[in-house]
């Protein structure tokens, strides 16, 4: 985890976010293109705050964040340019209820100025295994499908950084595993840097390269999943390699 700027991927350098009484950071981390980092921690540790900070939804108090050469500091940085480099999937998908799955993805593609909106939308839905469910409304989709539409929406404009907030929350282990397989496949096919938060260490950590452990807004551990220290044993997954598809 060096602190040199990357051509692509994500670099967070001593980033601090102050939200009332809660302070996140300083956080420093680097995620190379094609690498996947999981952010774990207890409830209220600052996982979602970090996600929103990476997406430009929270102000940066100090430090800097670089995504694919778009730099953001506390005083500088075009937020709109920065946000266009990032694809975010919220908890539960956060889809627009009145739009079909296809329209949800197409709206983002269209507003982000993607060429061939329909083609890219089909491609993104196909990548998450929902090519035939495009006409369904979010209320007609299962929890796992909604996450996958959220993932397609985040990926449709080929972002340099993919941020997934608690992508398996509320899903049973098998559905969570399926969703993670789609995440891994989509992540590998696009070669972007991916940061995801989770409570589900057993389901998610077998798929990732590195882990960042947050404790009360501070970084407790950053490094390989295989070397999580004994002090943080509850965050060790039962398996390190992904299980075979059921």
């Amino acid at each position, binding site marked *: 985890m060096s602190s040199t700027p990357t051509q692509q991927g994500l670099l967070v350098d001593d980033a601090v976010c102050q939200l009332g009484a809660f302070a996140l950071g300083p956080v420093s981390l680097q995620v190379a293109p094609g690498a996947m980092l999981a952010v774990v921690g207890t409830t209220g540790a600052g996982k979602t705050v970090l996600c929103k900070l990476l997406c430009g*939804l929270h102000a940066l108090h100090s430090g800097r964040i670089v995504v694919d050469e778009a730099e953001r500091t506390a005083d500088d940085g075009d937020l*709109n340019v920065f946000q266009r480099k990032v694809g975010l999937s919220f908890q539960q998908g956060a*889809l*627009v209820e*009145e739009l079909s799955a296809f329209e949800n993805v197409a*709206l983002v593609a269209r*507003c*982000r100025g993607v060429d061939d909106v329909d083609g890219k939308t089909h491609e993104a839905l196909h990548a998450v295994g929902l090519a035939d469910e495009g006409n369904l409304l979010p209320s007609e989709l299962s929890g796992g499908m909604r996450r996958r539409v959220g993932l397609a*929406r985040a990926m449709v404009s080929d972002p340099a950084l993919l941020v997934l907030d608690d992508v398996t929350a509320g899903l049973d282990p098998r559905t969570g595993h399926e969703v993670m397989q789609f995440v891994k496949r989509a992540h590998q096919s696009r070669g972007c840097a991916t940061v995801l938060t989770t409570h589900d260490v057993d389901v998610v950590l077998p798929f990732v390269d590195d882990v960042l452990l947050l404790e009360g807004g501070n970084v407790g551990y950053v490094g390989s999943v295989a070397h999580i220290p004994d002090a943080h044993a509850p965050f060790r997954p039962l398996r390190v390699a992904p299980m075979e598809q059921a």
Partner: protein
Amino acid sequence: MTPTMLFTSWGERLLWALSHVGNIFLFGLRMALSIVRFDVDGREVLRQLDRLCLRALPLLLAGSALIGGIVALQGLNYVARYNATEVFGWATALSAYQEVGPLLLGLALAARVGTKNAAELATMRARERLMALTALGLDVERCILRPRALAIFLCGGLFFPLCTAVIMFCGFIGAALLGEQNAAISLHSFMEYTPTTTILLGGLRMLVFSLFVGVLSTYFGNAAGRDPRSLGRAVYASSITGMTGIVTANLYLSFLGAPS
């Protein structure tokens, strides 16, 4: 409560209200500028016209038919009292195009379309749907808010000819059935005595009302907070301000058009 506390409390409320008025004005101005610059997501405007406005058309047409009935009953009183058979068509047109028609259609638009728009946006705000779109780098005002406000504005102009035609038709037929007022004479009176400006000014009045409904419902829906009560407050604020704005504008426009 001391006078100072009272002064502070009312001062805060006044500033709160003024900040909303300023924000509404700025939102309306940005919407107008985007139309002038053709910076509008036309596909989204059409989609919102279909799902927000077109689905409200049956209610508006049913309301128009009832307004036609009211106009017929009121007009027949004067026909009977002053033997004003010759001017019934003209009087009906005056009500339909300039006074009762736009006012009641505007209120129906605020009740049916405005509240739906405000409720949907407030729900999207409460469930972080709009925040998610912002995080994806979308200009929510351009992609979501302006198309909705613009669709409602256009809906007023598009539905006005249809709804007023229904008012006139039901007025003439109602008068013929209830008071033996000859429909052909009513139609002749309408064609002969109604100036084009009456119809055009009525359309303009309806556009003003639908602009109020579009801008206010979109603004209050988007300004909602994340707690569940804010949804009710957004719908309440949208309908109350929309209806008050329509009635006030109607009074002002009637005052402008009144003979000096």
